């Protein structure tokens, strides 16, 4: 299966690792990605002008139509924006003719039934369930992960058709296939807080802190995201910003470099009693890691494409994990050779 690859605006400069991970993962799984010169999905414009948003999103739908491909995006916000556009352009004739007439000036035509998919759906739908499991082996065995769903793909369910909006399962299903252990946690469907970044920073950080605390308390070693913005939110270290009042000290511990260094040194050394090289460091490493964490430390965030890629044996470098300060991705602790 081949898709028109819609990375969205933030990947090239703000989160290039995500682009690298998606490209590497899709290449490894034989999912064809065709780069088209899309424009902004429109999401940031929705606060300013409905028409500018519809114009922007609609043009992307038309570009994919012209190429005869379905859109695949790794960003939940891009996904949601494009699905909303497909919805409103179908529901509202007036809007449709407005957008269509502007697109017609450059020879583009709005599709009747735009095809927009999120990376998770593609991984779930296009791959045989056994395929991921077979390729993954036990690399991620014992790793407890909190799947963060991201709002804009999930809701409103009648617009996005991503999964059951009140009880989704696709993310956990995929993570289980690659051997990780999703934990149940109360706030898994809540907002990461990024939409208020730079707008209401205090609130944005409070939302982020609530989720991290909940994930930690649920026993997660790792928070897993599948959205550019969510990842930016959770990965950002807020040195310059007021930490949420609840957890200032803890948040500082998570982002403190020395804390990470000790973890990184700690994890590879604990796999003493293994007789299957490469596969087993994880259970002990993860346990050790959990024990090594300073009391109350927040789980680091990783992109699903990276975790799944690690699961099927891609190297951290291929997945853009060279710069992420995550102790969990140390090659030796993942049993990755080379």
């Amino acid at each position, binding site marked *: 299966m081949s898709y028109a690859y819609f990375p969205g*605006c*933030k990947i*090239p*400069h*703000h989160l290039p690792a995500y682009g690298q991970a998606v490209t590497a993962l899709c290449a490894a799984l034989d999912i064809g990605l065709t780069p088209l*010169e*899309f*424009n*902004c999905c*429109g999401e*940031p*414009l*929705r*606060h*300013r*002008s*409905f*028409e*500018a948003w519809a*114009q*922007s999103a609609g*043009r992307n739908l038309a570009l994919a139509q012209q190429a005869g491909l379905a859109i695949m995006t790794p960003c939940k916000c891009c996904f949601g924006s494009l699905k909303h556009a497909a919805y*409103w352009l179908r529901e*509202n004739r*007036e*809007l449709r003719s*407005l957008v269509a007439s*502007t697109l017609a*000036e*450059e020879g583009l035509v709005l599709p009747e039934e735009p095809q927009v998919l999120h990376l998770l759906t593609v991984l779930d739908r296009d791959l045989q369930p056994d395929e991921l499991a077979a390729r993954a082996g036990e690399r991620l065995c014992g790793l407890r992960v909190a799947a963060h769903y991201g*709002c*804009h793909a*999930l*809701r*409103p*369910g009648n617009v996005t058709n991503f999964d059951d*909006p*009140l009880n989704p399962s696709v993310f956990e299903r995929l993570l289980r296939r690659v051997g990780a252990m999703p934990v149940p946690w109360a706030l898994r*469907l*809540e*907002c990461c*807080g990024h*939409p*208020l970044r*730079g*707008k*209401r*920073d205090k*609130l944005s950080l*409070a*939302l982020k802190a*609530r989720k991290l605390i909940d994930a930690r308390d649920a026993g997660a070693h790792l928070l897993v995201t599948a959205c550019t913005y969510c990842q930016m939110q959770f990965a950002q270290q807020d040195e*310059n*910003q*007021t930490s949420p009042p609840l957890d200032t000290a803890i948040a500082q511990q998570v982002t403190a470099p020395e804390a990470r260094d000790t973890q990184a040194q700690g994890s590879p050394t604990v796999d003493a009693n293994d007789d299957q090289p490469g596969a087993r460091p994880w259970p002990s490493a993860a346990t050790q890691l959990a024990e090594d964490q300073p009391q109350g430390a927040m789980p680091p965030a990783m992109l699903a494409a990276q975790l799944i890629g690690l699961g099927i044996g891609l190297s951290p470098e291929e997945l853009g994990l060279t710069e992420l300060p995550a102790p969990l991705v140390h090659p030796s602790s993942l049993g990755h050779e080379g």
Partner: protein
Amino acid sequence: MIWGGMDFFDTGLALSLTALGLGLGAKALSWLRLTIAPGPPPGMAARLSALARSLVRNLAPHRAARWGRALVMDGLLQRRIAGNGVERWLMHLAIFAGFMGLLIMHGLDELTSERWFAGYAPALDPYQWLRNLFGVLTLGGLAVAVWRRRMLPRVRRTTGAQDWALIALLGGIMISGLGLEAAKIISPQVFDSMVEQYLGTDDEAEINDLRLLWSEEYGVIFLMPPPHSDEALAQGREAHEGSCVYCHSRPTSAFVSYPLAKTMAPLGDALNNLRADLLFYYLHVGLCFLGLALLPWGKFMHPLSAPLNLTLRQGRTSSDTGTKPPALAAVLRPLGLDACTHCGACSEHCSVAPAFLALGTPDILPSEKLSSLKRHAAARLRGPALRAFAEGSQICTECLRCTTLCPSGIDLQDLWMQSRTRLRETGPGEPHLVLAQRPLRDWAATFRSLPPARVEAARSVKLCDNRASFWGCIQCTTCTSVCPVVAASQAPARELDLTPQQIMNMLRMGLKEEALGAEMVWSCVTCYKCQENCPQGVRVADVLYELRTLAWARLREHPEAWAETGATAGTGHATGGERSVETGRDAWSAARGDHAARAMSRTADAPTIQPMPSTLAGTQPEPETKGDEA
């Protein structure tokens, strides 16, 4: 030039060189003074020493190889233009090669050709032929440029007066040059003055024989051409070979100007009487002087600044200026601004170009925003132009595409990110921040006083003004109880003004204006939990989106309602006093304080709306005014 107008030439050259020197000096000074990034700008001395340190470091062989390669590949061979399409590269290379060929071989011939080539004379082949070739190359490239700028919609929309001016100037120089050559070919006056200088005889018969030859084979149009005779022609050729042949090839090799001279022939006498050769000379040389004087300004500077910037960028297409020492980055940024050729490649591929089509603000397109940024950096941007720049700056999604594409290698990504951060300090802020500047009751009064925006009436989807949108609402508070913003708030009633279900209720009652400025509307994270969970199918989150667009549409059409006024620093008062947007930094930090004060003041009367202008009681300063840190 050995002929005519010496005073004109010397004076013009001196004047234009002076203008050039002064202009370049001003530019260099501006690189040390202009401010693009937020925070205190590095001083001139700091910038100079950073630049000097960087230059010294870059003399190391491995670094020199890198920038040397960039100079050749990107500057001379223009690899980065090729990245934007082969036809574009061919167009620019034709102009570049033609113009540089003429400049070096012909324009500066006293310094170049006369020293390099033994027996050089302008009217000898191959120089005569090459001049025509270079001229045609340039004109061909310019013709493609004109065609592109007129016929391609995406190029046309960013084409401005300066683009036409440069094309016209170059075209004018080329056409006047060819005209000059043709006018000299047919001119008997030029013939006579050459005879006087070089023939070494004043024997009228001999001159007449030479006239015959030059009339028949060299295209001179005499008022009374000598009668033809083979003998006279042979005599003339003998004289020609004695005196003229060292400097003159037959003009037939001037494959443009000679046919042009032939075409002019019917009007030849008239043109010669008018001294067309002198007119073309003044035009040609005058335009060259004009170009020289304009060289330091606008896109006229790109022949100097673009290669310089490309060399400094050393072939990189990513954004790295922000990682350099602040003083060095402070020099590189304005230098990058000056490297813009206004070719429009960035705007052709801009990710948010559709927003330009919908909103019509030129500054949404990077090529146009860059011009505004130049003026903003020099603190010369005010009023509507400043707001347009802010809008363009805020709408940019920082997708890096323009930076990757820019043929001049400008680190646009860095310019956009820095100037955007600076705008956040100085204002005008983006809608969310503008709306945080005043309490709800102030906004309610403002919105009531403003007529609906034009786009408000024209919009295709109208949820808020349609009471059917809220028909189902039974005020069950589900939306409020699932809202993560409400949950994260310590005291929703005073921090958020209204809860989602209260907003629905107000809209149901037709009190839209009272809700537009509610903090809940502007703190919405757009997670759609409210809408998903509403048992009655009310589009709560869509309505909040729409309220934001409506509020912004009104304020955008009526900037006088917000842009020129702001909160008084530190007091928490929202006043109507005049306040320049240039001092918006104070307004901004005050606004944050105001927000807290406003929240406090509302403990008593929240969340009811009092439709009266406010003088707030609460004057406590905000305990953590974040705006002051930066």
